[in-house]
């Protein structure tokens, strides 16, 4: 049994898929290098990331399957699910045979898996568009920390770029130590970490209080329903919400 191992980057995964087509032995699985376990019966083949090979695979997806398939593959990759690499490989293999109709072949377990992963990631990204809370810092930058389940920073940044083009803002994925930095209609995603708490602008406290008070007063007392609230707004997202202060994630 042969498993391909790539470096954890999207390009790495696409390179592995390229090699799977051109090398002798076909991989049983394609894994990212941070989730391999020792297994006597498995031969691990490490794939070196190659930008050109990756680009060729990406172009092939867009031209031979569809651009929506390319988007699904990227979203499935961003889910960071262990089986994402393998599922993407099988999905693309079928896709290169069937063309764009591969997305109708939902009875195929890998196709369905890609659809599920794509849905999960886009749902969380959609939810995050609403749940991000910016705080105004002393230096005039709006700063928002998040800890999403999936690596969605790249999906949500363009939304805020369109919406707040004149605002300087940072969206910080604390868990992955990544941040999107935006200034004057341009943004970049870079590794980011800081040691000390960032100083808040004076007027920030006033608006935080106003928002909390508004939040308290908008609920109808005779219909209080915390279960329904948590169903839509899972507790694991509360940590950085202004209106749910200090609520740590319960396991």
């Amino acid at each position, binding site marked *: 049994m042969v498993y391909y191992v790539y470096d954890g980057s999207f390009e790495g995964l696409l390179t592995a898929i390229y090699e799977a087509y051109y090398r002798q032995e076909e991989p049983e699985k394609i894994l990212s290098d941070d989730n391999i376990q020792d297994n006597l019966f498995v031969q691990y083949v490490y794939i070196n990331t190659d930008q050109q090979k990756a680009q060729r695979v990406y172009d092939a997806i867009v031209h031979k399957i569809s651009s929506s398939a390319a988007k699904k593959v990227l979203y499935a990759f961003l889910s960071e699910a262990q089986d994402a690499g393998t599922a993407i490989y099988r999905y693309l293999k079928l896709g290169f045979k069937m063309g764009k*109709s591969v*997305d*109708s*072949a*939902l*009875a195929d377990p890998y196709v*369905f898996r890609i*659809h599920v992963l*794509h*849905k999960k990631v*886009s749902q969380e990204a*959609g*939810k995050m*568009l*609403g*749940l*991000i*809370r*910016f*705080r*105004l810092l002393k230096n005039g930058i*709006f700063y*928002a920390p998040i800890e999403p389940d999936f690596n969605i920073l790249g999906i949500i940044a363009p*939304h*805020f770029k*369109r*919406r*707040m*083009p*004149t*605002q300087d803002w940072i969206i910080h994925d604390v868990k992955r130590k990544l941040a999107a930095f935006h200034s004057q209609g341009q943004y970049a995603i870079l590794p980011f970490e800081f040691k000390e708490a960032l100083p808040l602008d004076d007027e920030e406290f006033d*608006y935080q*209080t*106003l*928002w909390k*008070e*508004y*939040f308290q*007063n*908008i*609920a*109808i*007392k*005779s*219909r*209080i*329903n*915390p*279960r*329904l*609230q948590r*169903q*839509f*707004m899972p507790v694991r997202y509360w940590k950085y*919400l*202004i*209106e749910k202060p200090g609520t740590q994630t319960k396991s």
Partner: protein
Amino acid sequence: MDLHTKLKILGAAAKYDVSCSSSGSSRRNRSSGLGNASLPGICHSWSDDGRCISLLKILFTNHCAFNCLYCVNRATADVPRATFTPDEVAQLTINFYKRNYIEGLFLSSAVYKNPNYTMELLVTTVKKLRKEYQFNGYIHLKVIPGADPLLIAEAGKYADRISVNIELPSSQGLQLLAPQKSRDSIIRPMEFIHSKILQTREERKLYKNAPLFVPAGQTTQLIVGATPDNDLKILKLSESLYNHFSLKRVYYSAYVPVTQHPNLPSIASPPLMREHRLYQADWLVRVYGFKADELLDENQPLLDTEIDPKSAWALRNLHLFPVEVNRADYEMLIRVPGIGVRSAKRIIAARRYSTIDFDILKRFGVVLKRARHFITCNGKFYGERNINELTLYQMLKPTAKQQNSTKVAGEQLTFPSLYPQLFQPEDVHTVITGEM
């Protein structure tokens, strides 16, 4: 009075308005401005009662000249009163929006002095937000019953959505509980807005830059349980509003007893289950292609509280079932209890390439507990044999355990009583099939 106190009073005063959606508009940002609208809408938070917060929902003022019996802000009520200035509303909106607390503004008001005076204040505020503050986010404006059509036309230029609340489903109800409002003062503006929307649509076909008029359409709200009107009457009303005025949504609001009066029913808690069933039935009418007459009739004018309206319909029409999932058309598939829009679309797509077996149905999100009684899969029937309507009814009911687990503070809440992001028929494509 400071801004904190005002926001507390005028935020709390707006909470009985249920509309929360920020969908249906794709207003774009201009380079130097702030904000845009998102077509499927975005929820930003959920309050302690589980309802979504998308817009900053406030009243401009709660000083009211009207005396509607069911309302907390009626003229004779003894409550603290406050009034914003247009700049206060604009600055709150802008600063909340910059922090991503909200998707925009929902501005309503009590009737201050007279309808035209109030409507003018609302229009001034919204105009200011758009012109002075360069705000391009979502704005939902409430029409004050009795306001001049000219003011409504002006409001529609700046708002993404406007709404006129019907509140009570019959003119008798209005006479009894809201004597200063009349059927005419409510229906006429709705008619006017509808014709204006149609006119704008034609203009924009000819001139791409013709000004917008409420791009996200109009909605309304009905109070359920304050008057003796039955579900059939309410659902028929909604159906005709969808058909005649192309309303985007009708919201239902379980009557919350805030005051005592001989003309008002005395109930301990709001009829949440009834509200929930009405939302389900409304959904069936709007999205699933049901007619109000199919769901209810004169002999059965109330929705069943035990089982959902689609199951109830299926039980009355057992002669149409079972249907074969590999052959039935889409319209029939979505009528099967346990199969929704999403799973029906998956079935239609997948069966072009392979036959659907029972395991695949499970994976597609079909609720087989309900659906198995109404389908065959490759000719095989998975439900119970020799079963009649009555036993099936018992099987479709939520079990006592399910009911217990959902009891909150003595009230029975089986399902979300308000759909979170309320999408419209034309959004169905983006919301439901967008991911397929």
